[in-house]
Structure formats: structure tokens, C-alpha cells
């Protein structure tokens, strides 16, 4: 009955909402401020919540789940800096954002705490504290006259009852469903309706938490009032109970006369371009012009193959009249070893190929990282579909096809000794993913797996309900079960294998009890001698319950039994106590019997030998909302610097894509093309959208998320190092960058960057400084594309950079030397002229002497002529050789080539002139050219892709 009296005042609102919903088609929900003005609750009479919702003040029986807990959230009580903090505040700890109704209720009602006092209601600390700024660490939160105070008071008066079983929220509806603003200060009040499982519906605006995803576009106040603050688009999000609902907010830029855009050989009707255009039209954004050939070539070479184009390539590409040259270039880049290496590095980032976590598996060597890298590399080179690569990783185990433990150890030992990964690469699966040292418990695996392959950040739900998505702690727990059936066994896993292990130890003459560092050392030595040593293996079983879980189940069973037999209660409790002590002997089930994948119904494990198969099948269902989306979004972000969802590994309800249709199209297309990665690369790289210039136009300078122009982004660490090496390398080396990738940074297998070398120099320091992925956090942000002081110090004055710039076999030295030999040619040519003049004189003299028949003198002159002739031939030969070995060099050419090698474009006349002055003021050509190269690699144009 009390419930009725509480709902009654809401009838008016409910009725209104029903009318509103039923009256309209979808378009009527796209409310503009003018439309809102006709609604009964307009912003003109916008008052504070307590005035807007006088109804709440009269609630006589507030519900803990529906009202009290969300209200504490709205008041900020359970925020992270207050009582939601891990250690609580002032002795009171509430669950973060108040999703744990049971615990919070218990915390508020803790006996002796005085927080809730049903006898002396107003003495209850939850009322007394927040109205008193002096006595409350969190300051004043409530007025005595406020409806919130009244509501809390009523709840206590009503017995301060908790929620026995949380009610299910079916849907959290927000009205209007989309907002289009016109000018600054335009505003709309949101209304939030909770649809409960029992069919009831309730206006919960006053209990909802709101957030704007970009306050520079729209602000939202605590009461759901949305205000336009800038042009562009974003979402505001409503959070209530388990519900998360984002509302698109758009405000178009001023309309402008369309620019004439001379697009090159690009099909503007390509789906990507069409979908991007739709969004641009909504916002009155115009695309920037198409990137010119040089800009396109540098960008696409870096993005697809991680490599700068050579000067010769730029000359040829710019001069090529073919209409399909861009398409052809994309195809040829996709066929290079550099493409395979660079995108393998991408997949190693994604899957977490971390050397430190693999070291113990291979007795201290980096072979495991190399195996991981090479296994993927082979598949990327062969363009194996992405889902098959992932399946090979997910459904892996160490031994397959009846291989015995001994055979397994033999093959691993051979590989470790020979450092060859050939036989590993041919395996159908790649078990190292599950074998990393710090990836062994199922929670860590669940967090990692969700981020790696689903782009979902589920870790919040490990400790509390996910604040920005629907995941609860039980969603997390049930998901993690799928990862409890796979374990790393340090050596033998069965009686039979133990016998084999003993034989291996016997052969080695080693004590089987040797462990830890001693075992590692002894095994390393034995491997060197070509012996077989024991290896850890990945073993798949049914999904195991942990001892703690089994204990809980056993105790719950015990407690149930105890309740059933009330008179025997004490005895049973004593028994339960006894059981507790007997740790190794917990009765009850050993295995999980079912689990739930993210968003799925319960899935039975009955008859399934490897539950990872269920995960793999689910990911590859056509309707899976994450698997393909996460991948295409990540690849997209590599081409644009930002994802369609951003951050790229955070697909959650409160973080909607900037262009949902575009993401859907790419994900669907990727699945329809059987997860063909090259299809995706082609689709993106050939689009007009990708080939847009970074130069903004009048309309799109502020656009960051709709792909109306290219946004300059810092080169990834590997490409910084390789681009520096490339810029400084001699012609014959950098023409091989696309094919000879072995020593390049894009081919570093694990996280030890020292294996990348240029001219014998380790790249480890630079890779770290520029933020190569550390692969240790289950976050795409393990790779940093931020900039820092250490990086600019590196570019200006690091020994690496000086070493490369001034390397005796480097490009600068080569050119300086060639030019010096040009100087010598000039001297030789002068000498040649002198010799020729002298010869002519002598020949004239000889002619005269012949006439005079002066034999003695003639003989002398003839021998002198012979002497000079051979001298002349020698000089001529030297000149010919010099001119063969170096083409004609002039300073303008040098400056142009320096530009092409670094920023990939031709310099302007002013730039050439400035460089020429600098070079003239230098003491030598070497100094001048080094300075020009130094300046170029320190430009922003060099260090970003644009």
C-alpha cells in the first residue's frame, strides 16, 4: 500500500511520457530546442531538481535500490574521492557508484555505527553528517529542507529496509533520443525512464547520473539539463542502476559554399566515403582536398609498410601518369616483407608478445618471443584470415597429434639450440599466449583476453560493477571461467610423463630435484651441448574450480543443511569448522558446469573437452558485437590516428562510435570477406577519406573525429628509428628497406628492442624513449604516441643521431666525398688542358725539327711527347672513372634529396635558398649537409605522419 502512495505522484509524469512515446514516430524523438519549448517541462521554467521534482519529497516509502542508493550516488557520497574510495572515508566505505546494494546497506546499518538510527531518525549520521559542513569531511551536501533529505528521512522512518533481491532493469530510456542544437546556450532537459522487469515504468531523472563525453560540445548538469557549448558532435550519457544510455548531440558548423574539390582517381561512391560523407553533411563539414602524390606516397608507405619512400620512388610516382597508380602502389606495398613485418608487430602488440614473461619457458633465451613473432609473420605473409590466426592462438596446447612428452622436449630442445623457428612456425597453433608468466590466473586471462580480442575493458568489473558498461562482478566471474581449463605445467603432467621425465634427467645426469636458477643454468648448458632438457607445457583440462570456490560451495551446502536441521545446527557448524581446517580435502564438485560469455546466456560445459572452443565459436558468430569491430577499429586507428571508437580498445555502452554506420560497414565487410586483412587495408587505403590532405579548410579545422581531414600523428617508435636510419643510409641500403627487414625495428620480435640494429648500433634506447609497446598492461596505451622531452633531446643531440648523420658510409659522407672527387675532377680537367696545350706545342716543335732534320733534338721531343701522352691518358681515365662513379652533384640536388629522404616532398624555392645559405656559411660540404639533415629530422614534418 505504501508503494502505491509513493508511485501515485508520478502518474502525471508517466502519463505524459506514454503520450509522448506513443504519439510519435522516431523523428518526433529528434527534438530540437524549439520542439522542446512546446513540452510542458521546458528549460524556461528550469529550476533546481528539488523544485522540478516536488513529487519525490512526498515519497513515503523510498526503495533502497531504486532511490536511496542512486541518490547517494548523485550526492557524490560513493564517489572515488569519498566513501567509494578503496579505503572508504571516515570509517564508511560504500561500493563505487553504489551498485552493490547488499554491502552498502550492511555498511549503512552496521550496528553501533550510528549511521542509521531508526529510533532517533534525525540523529542518524547519514542525515546529520551531510547537512553539517563542519563535521563532515566531505562538506555540506544537503539542506534540511531539501527533498533529498526528506527522502532519506522517510526511508529510515520506514525501517531502512534493504533490497532483498535486486530488481531487473529492462531498459533505460532517455528522451529525447537525439539532440540537434543550433547555437551556444541552446538547451534541452533530458527525461530518464526506467523500465523494470515487472512491467512498471518510472521517471528516474532525479536519480540518474549524467555525463558529457565532450564538455566542449555539450555540457550536462546533474539534473539532466544539456547545454550546447560548441560546434561538433558528441554524446551525453545517462547512468542509472544497470542502465547506460548514450544520446547523440549534434551541432552543425556554419554552412559554407562548397569548395571545388578536384579529386583524383578516387571513387567517391566507395562505401567508406559515402558513410563518412553522411556524417559530414549533418555537421556542414567539408572535406579537405585530396592529398597530393608526394603526401599520399609518404603516408601510405609508412602506414602499410612502416617505411619511407626513397627519393627515386617519389620521383617515379609523381611522374607516373597512370590513373591507377595509387591503387597499384597500395597493392605493391601490401606485397612487401615490410608490410608483413610491421603488421606482425601490430599483432604481437595486440596479443602481448612480452619477452620477459616468456624468458623462463626457454631457459633465458629470447627464442619464445621469436617463435611467437615468426608464427604470426608466416600467416600475415600468407594473408591467413585474422579469425584463423586468433583461433590458432586461442585453441592451442603444447602437444598435439599424439606427440609424447619426450618427443615434445626433443623438438623444443632442438629449436632452442638451433635458434631456428621453422618447425614452430609450421605448427597449427601458438600456445605461448597462454604460457606467459604473468598471465596464469583466470582473472588476468579474462581481462587480457577481453582487451586483446574483443576490445573490451572489463577489469573494472573484477572489483565492482563496471561504471560505464553493463558488466557486473558476476558477468566477470562467469566469463573468467572459460579460462580456467588451461594451465602451464612446469614439466610432466601425468604418471606416464613423469616416467619419461625421469629418463630425460637420467640421460642428462641431472638431479630431478634441482629447481629455480640452478635448473635454468644446468639446462642452458645442456641445451648448448645439444642435449634434450625438460620443457614446460600447456595442458588443457575441464574448467577447474579454485579451492576457495570449492570451499565456498561446500560451506554453502553445509549451511543449507544446517538450516534444514535446526536442532543439529551446532554440530554441523562444528563439522564445517573442522572441514575448514582440512584444506586439502574439500568435498564437492571439481569443475565449473557452466559460464556466460559477455552478453550471452548461460552456456553449459557438459561434454565440452576444451571450453575455449566455445569462446572461439562465439567470437566468430556473425553477430558477435566485439571481435570484428575491435579489430577493424584498431586497424582504422593505425591509418587515421584515432579510432571510430576512441580509445580504441574500449568498446563500451557509454563510449559509442563517432560513426556507427561506418564501423558496422567495416566489421560486416571484414566478416563477409572471411576476415581478410588485406581487404581491410585496401578498403581503407583506397578511400578518398584516407587520401585526404592534412591541410584544413575553413569548415573543418576543429573537426577531430569525423575524418574530414588527415590529422598529423607522431610516428610509432619503430618507425622513428627506422626513418632516422633510412634518412641517413646510403642509397643502396635504403632502396632495400622494403625487402630486407631483418635488422629493422619493425621486425623486433619481443619487448627487448636491442635486437634492432642499424650499422651495428642498438635501437633499444630510442625504442623505449619513443614508447614502443611494452606489452605488459593489456592496454593499447602500452604503446605511447605521446611526445616528451626525452624524445626531442634525443633527436637534437643523441649519440645515435650524430652517429647516423656522420657515419662514414652514410649518405651525407657519401655525397660529401663524391662532391670532393668532383673538385678533383675539376683540377684534373685543368691539368688535362695544360698537358694538351703543352703537347700541341711539342708537336708543333717536332714538326719544325723534322723539317730541320735535327734528329738529336727530335728524339728528345718525341720521348717527351710519349711521356705527356701517357700522362694525358692517365688523367683522362681518372676523369672518366670519377664521372662514372658519381653523377653530377650540385647543392640544389643535394638539398632536394635531403628533403625527399626525410619529409618525402620537394622543397620550395625559399627552403632551398635557406639551406643553401646555411651550407655556404659552413666550413665544409660535410658540415653543411649534416646541418641540413639535422634540421630536417628535427622538423615536426619528419617526426609525424601527415
Amino acid at each position, binding site marked *: 500500500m505504501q508503494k502505491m502512495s509513493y508511485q501515485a505522484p508520478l502518474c502525471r509524469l508517466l502519463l505524459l511520457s506514454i503520450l509522448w512515446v506513443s504519439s510519435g514516430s522516431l523523428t518526433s524523438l529528434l527534438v530540437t530546442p524549439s520542439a522542446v519549448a512546446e513540452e510542458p517541462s521546458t528549460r524556461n521554467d528550469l529550476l533546481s531538481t528539488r523544485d522540478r521534482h516536488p513529487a519525490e519529497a512526498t515519497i513515503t516509502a523510498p526503495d533502497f535500490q531504486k532511490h536511496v542508493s542512486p541518490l547517494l550516488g548523485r550526492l557524490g557520497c560513493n564517489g572515488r*574521492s569519498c566513501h567509494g574510495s578503496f*579505503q572508504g572515508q571516515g570509517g564508511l566505505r560504500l561500493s563505487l557508484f553504489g551498485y552493490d546494494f547488499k554491502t552498502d546497506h550492511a555498511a549503512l546499518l552496521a550496528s553501533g555505527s550510528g549511521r542509521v538510527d531508526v529510533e532517533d531518525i534525525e540523529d542518524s549520521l547519514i542525515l546529520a553528517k551531510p547537512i553539517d559542513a563542519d563535521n563532515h569531511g566531505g562538506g555540506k551536501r544537503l539542506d534540511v529542507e531539501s527533498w533529498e533529505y526528506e527522502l532519506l528521512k522517510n526511508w529510515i522512518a520506514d525501517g531502512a529496509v534493504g533490497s532483498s533481491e535486486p530488481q531487473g532493469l529492462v531498459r533505460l530510456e532517455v528522451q529525447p533520443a537525439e539532440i540537434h542544437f543550433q547555437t551556444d546556450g541552446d538547451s534541452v532537459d533530458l527525461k530518464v525512464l526506467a523500465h523494470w522487469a515487472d512491467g512498471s515504468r518510472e521517471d528516474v531523472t532525479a536519480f540518474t547520473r549524467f*555525463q558529457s*563525453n*565532450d564538455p566542449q560540445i555539450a555540457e550536462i548538469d546533474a539534473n539532466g539539463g544539456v547545454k550546447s557549448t560548441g560546434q561538433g558532435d*558528441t554524446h551525453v550519457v545517462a547512468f542509472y542502476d544497470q542502465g547506460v544510455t548514450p544520446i547523440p548531440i549534434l551541432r552543425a558548423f556554419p554552412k559554407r559554399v562548397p569548395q571545388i574539390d578536384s579529386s583524383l582517381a578516387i571513387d567517391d561512391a566507395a562505401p567508406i566515403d559515402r558513410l563518412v560523407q553522411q556524417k559530414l553533411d549533418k555537421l556542414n563539414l567539408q572535406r579537405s582536398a585530396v592529398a597530393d602524390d608526394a603526401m599520399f606516397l609518404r603516408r601510405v608507405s609508412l602506414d602499410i609498410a612502416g617505411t619511407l619512400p626513397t627519393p627515386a620512388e617519389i620521383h617515379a610516382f609523381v611522374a607516373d601518369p597512370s590513373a591507377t597508380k595509387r591503387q597499384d602502389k597500395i597493392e605493391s606495398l601490401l606485397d612487401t616483407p615490410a608490410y608483413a613485418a610491421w603488421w606482425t608487430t601490430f599483432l604481437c602488440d595486440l596479443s602481448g608478445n612480452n619477452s*620477459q614473461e616468456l624468458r623462463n619457458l626457454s631457459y633465458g633465451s629470447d627464442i619464445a618471443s621469436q617463435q611467437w613473432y615468426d608464427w604470426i609473420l608466416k600467416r600475415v605473409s600468407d594473408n591467413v584470415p585474422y579469425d584463423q590466426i586468433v583461433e590458432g592462438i586461442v585453441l592451442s596446447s603444447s602437444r598435439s597429434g599424439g606427440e609424447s612428452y619426450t618427443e615434445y622436449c626433443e623438438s623444443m630442445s632442438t629449436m632452442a639450440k638451433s635458434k631456428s623457428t621453422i618447425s614452430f612456425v609450421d605448427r597449427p597453433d601458438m600456445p605461448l599466449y597462454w604460457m606467459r608468466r*604473468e598471465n596464469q590466473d583466470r582473472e*588476468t586471462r579474462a581481462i587480457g583476453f577481453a582487451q586483446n580480442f574483443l576490445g573490451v*575493458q572489463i*577489469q*573494472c568489473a573484477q572489483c*565492482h560493477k563496471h*561504471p560505464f558498461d553493463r558488466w557486473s562482478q558476476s558477468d566477470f566471474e562467469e566469463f573468467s571461467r572459460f579460462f580456467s581449463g588451461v594451465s602451464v605445467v612446469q614439466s610432466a603432467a601425468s604418471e606416464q610423463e613423469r616416467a619419461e621425465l625421469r629418463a630425460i634427467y637420467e640421460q642428462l645426469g641431472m638431479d630431478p630435484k634441482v629447481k629455480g636458477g640452478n635448473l635454468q643454468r644446468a639446462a642452458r648448458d645442456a641445451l648448448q651441448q645439444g642435449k634434450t632438457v625438460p620443457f614446460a607445457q600447456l595442458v588443457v583440462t575441464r574448467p577447474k574450480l579454485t579451492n576457495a570456490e570449492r570451499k565456498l560451495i561446500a560451506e554453502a551446502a553445509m549451511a543449507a543443511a544446517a538450516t534444514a536441521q535446526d536442532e543439529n545446527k551446532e554440530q554441523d557448524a562444528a563439522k564445517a569448522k573442522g572441514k575448514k581446517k582440512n584444506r586439502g580435502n574439500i568435498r564437492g564438485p571439481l569443475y565449473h558446469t557452466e559460464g556466460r560469455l559477455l552478453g550471452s546466456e548461460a552456456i553449459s560445459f557438459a561434454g565440452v573437452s576444451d571450453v575455449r572452443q566455445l569462446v572461439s565459436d562465439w567470437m566468430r558468430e556473425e553477430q558477435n558485437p566485439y571481435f570484428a569491430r575491435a579489430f577493424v577499429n584498431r586497424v582504422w586507428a593505425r591509418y587515421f590516428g*584515432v579510432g571510430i571508437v*576512441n*580509445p580504441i580498445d574500449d568498446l563500451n555502452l557509454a*563510449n559509442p562510435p563517432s560513426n556507427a554506420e561506418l564501423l558496422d560497414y567495416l566489421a560486416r565487410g571484414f566478416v563477409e570477406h572471411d576476415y581478410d586483412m588485406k581487404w581491410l587495408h585496401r578498403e581503407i587505403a583506397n578511400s578518398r577519406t584516407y587520401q585526404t590532405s592534412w591541410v584544413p579548410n575553413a569548415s573543418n*579545422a576543429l573537426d*577531430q*573525429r569525423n575524418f574530414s581531414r588527415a590529422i*598529423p600523428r*607522431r610516428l610509432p617508435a619503430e618507425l622513428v628509428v627506422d626513418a632516422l636510419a633510412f634518412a641517413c643510409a646510403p642509397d643502396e641500403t635504403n632502396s632495400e628497406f622494403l625487402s630486407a627487414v631483418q635488422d629493422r625495428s619493425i621486425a623486433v620480435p619481443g619487448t627487448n628492442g636491442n635486437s634492432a640494429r642499424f650499422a651495428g648500433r642498438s635501437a633499444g634506447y630510442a625504442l623505449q*624513449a*619513443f*614508447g614502443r609497446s611494452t606489452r605488459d*598492461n*593489456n*592496454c593499447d*596505451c*602500452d604503446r605511447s604516441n*605521446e*611526445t*616528451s*622531452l*626525452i*624524445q*626531442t*633531446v634525443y*633527436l*637534437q*643531440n643523441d*649519440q645515435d643521431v650524430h652517429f647516423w*648523420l*656522420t657515419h662514414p658510409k652514410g649518405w651525407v659522407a657519401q655525397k660529401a666525398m663524391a662532391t670532393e672527387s668532383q673538385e678533383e675532377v675539376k683540377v684534373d680537367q685543368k691539368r688535362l688542358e695544360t698537358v694538351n696545350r703543352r703537347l700541341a706545342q711539342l708537336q708543333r716543335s717536332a714538326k719544325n725539327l723534322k723539317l730541320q732534320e735535327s734528329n738529336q733534338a727530335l728524339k728528345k721531343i718525341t720521348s717527351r711527347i710519349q711521356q705527356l701522352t701517357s700522362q694525358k691518358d692517365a688523367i683522362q681515365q681518372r676523369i672518366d672513372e670519377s664521372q662514372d662513379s658519381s653523377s653530377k652533384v650540385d647543392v640544389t640536388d643535394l638539398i632536394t634529396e635531403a628533403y625527399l629522404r626525410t*619529409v618525402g616532398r620537394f622543397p620550395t624555392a625559399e*627552403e632551398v635558398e*635557406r*639551406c643553401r645559405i646555411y651550407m655556404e656559411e659552413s666550413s665544409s660540404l660535410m658540415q653543411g649537409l649534416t*646541418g*641540413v639533415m*639535422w*634540421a*630536417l629530422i*628535427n*622538423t*615536426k*614534418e619528419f*617526426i*609525424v605522419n601527415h
Partner: protein
Amino acid sequence: MTKHRQCDGYTRRDAIRVGALGATGLTLGGFLKLSHAGQTNPQTPTRNAIFIELPGGPSHIDTFDLKPDGKPEMRGPFQPIKTVVPGVEICEHLPKLAQQTTQFTILRGVSHSLGAHPLGQKFLFTGNRPTAALEYPAYGSVAAQQFEAEYDLPGYVAIPRASQGPGYLGVKNSALATNAVPVKGRPFNVRGISMAGGLSISELERRKNLLNDLDQTFAALESQHDLLGGLDEFSHKAFQMITSKRTRSAFDISREPESYHQLFADDPFSQSCLLATRLIESGIRFVTLNLGGWDTHQDNFTKLKDDLLPRLDNGLSGLFAGLQSKGLMESTTVFVTGEFGRTPKINSRSAEGGRDHYPRCMFMLMGGGAIRGGQVLGESDQNAEGPANEGFKPEDVAASFYQAIGIDPKQEFQTPTGRPVMIVREGNIIPELFK
């Protein structure tokens, strides 16, 4: 642009902007906004720190926790000597430090359970027990994130490098690693700071002028684009630092008078200690040093007596004397620790015997700044096999160290994945450590 929301609704960018930023790690948004608002110089008392790693795990029972009355198969041949603090005795092979015990506290009976080098180092050099899902930052990286650095100086320097990285705080909070140790009488080259490849300041200035003229392509975009604007700002700051007399002078130990040099021995660790005092004096706020070689499974006593203890004795006593003579003792906290102690029982791997990894009992030293000197805190049991009473956890010492340098150890950070995490997860400050 959509920003990353984290567990509490902050965005990643907000998290980055929180707190003062170290010089090597100024992030863009933060730096630009602060510097444009003229807020880069908050008035906070200067608190510096020197953190000394002793990787390998130094034996406690042979150094600062001797058991002359312990079992013969455990106590070893070293004898205790008196120090300037009555009742406090340390190993006979640390005679110079015995004269300096008023400067620091000896912590005994520190105890944990991670007996492998990498895990132990992660634990002890970050103050947080390693977990699978998260890399914790080195002490210096936290300081770099929290402290304000001078405009032309790095905030956090490691000599020659730090064993732990910046973890979840990101590359911007990495140490400026010298990658080498100074050698007495020779010029000291620091990566990125010293002029390399025959480059002179005047040539560098000439190049920078050329660069300023050429680097115009994005000029119009810089004010609106965080990355481009930041590259520009950092490029200028890098140039200031490289050409700064103050920075080069800070690393140039030859500028110290001979009388100062005499406080330090002629070995790499002592010279590093000398450099550390000079860096702190110049305004660099956090320096990490490193003295390795403590993994004495074999020939424990010879190695300690002939090599490790003299080097430690010389370096640390020089460091304390140097800080005193520069008047920096009051503002600089010094913290010395390995990753674990060593087994009290002497093994028989070599004729002389050695000691193996032993996390259950170890020692640490802390002094300077707000730390009280001249005392021993904690106690190990009869044979130094474990703490006598409750003992200290590494987290307790870590929390105290942060407290001493003015960083609230209970402060919560955001990891890049959005987890809230306290700087030190489970530490209780040890009140007796403080003055």
C-alpha cells in the same frame, strides 16, 4: 574528441594533468596549459631524494645486522665494530660508515617472500608487490610525475640507469639515464646532454636557427593541435637544456674543488655518489644510483671484504659527507636497499662458502631530510633468520619514504587501463623513522 573515461569518470587526459609534472615527463596538455597560465612555479618546500639500489641482494648478517653470538655455521667471520652512536654496531669492513651512523637509520628485520631477483627488485624498487596486471613505477618516476622541475633541467636522473621503468605512469616519467658512470679525472658524457660527434654549442645554435626557419609547415596548426604544439614546445625546451650552462655544469664533476673530491674514492660508485650530490645541488630533484654484485652464492666473504663493502663504505660515507658539506642533508632523503637479504646459513658451494637468496630477513638504510638519524629500527631474531617481532614490510618502508619526500603514499593514481591504484598499496608509515 571522446576521451577515455576511467573507473571514476576521470578521463585519461585529466589523469595526466593531475599533479605537477617532472621535467623529463612534462606532458603536453599539462605543460602548455600550466606554462601559459604562468603556474609552473608552485611554492613548495624543496624535497629531494637519492635512491640507491643494491641489486643482487646484500647479505644482512654480514653488514648491518651482525650476530656475533649466533650459531657458528651462520654468523660468519666478520666482527662487529662500534659506531659513533652508542649501542649501534655494524660490520668491521664498514669503518667510514661507522663514523656516519648519526646520519641515518638502520632498518632491520624487513621481511617479504619474493626470492627471485626480477620479482624482488620489482617489489623493493617500486614499493609494490608485483602483480600480473600492472607494472608499478619506480620511485623516481613517481617523483618525476609529482615534482615540478626547473625549466632547463631534467627532473629525474638515473646513474647509470634505473632497473625499474615508469610503469603505468608512462614514458614521459622515465629517468634521464646517464648510461655511464663518471670516472675521476675524465670528462663525463651524458647521453643527449653532452655534445657528441664533434658538435659545438655555436654549431648547434646555427642548426637550430636553420631548423626554426625550415620548421614552418605546421605553424598554423600548432595552436590547435596538442601533438604539434607539444613537439614545438619540447623542441625548444630540449634545446634550452642541451645548451644550458647549468645542466652541463651539473654533470661536470671536474668543477668540484679538490677538497670535495677527496671525500670520495676513485671508483665508479663513489664517483656516482659525487655526481648525485652535484645534481641535487643543481636543482635535479630525484637521482637513482646503483651498486650491484651482491649475489654472493659463492665466496661470500672474500667478495664482501675485498670489493663490495669497501665500495659501499666509501660511496655512502662520501655521499653523506658531501650532502652535509653542501648543506643538502636537511632537504635530501637517502634510501638504500637491495631486493632481499641472504641466507644466514652458509652454503658449501665453494670452499669458503656463500649465502643464497633470503627475502625473509633483510636490512635497509634511510637518512637525511625528515628522517631521524642515529638509530636502529626493527630487530631480527637470534640468527637473523627472520624478524624478531612483527618486522617491517617493504611497503611500510616505501610509504615512509614517499611521506619523507612529501608525496602522500595513499594518493590514488589512475592506471592507463582505468584502474585506480594507490601509490603504495598496503604500506603503513613507520612513525619512528621521522624526526
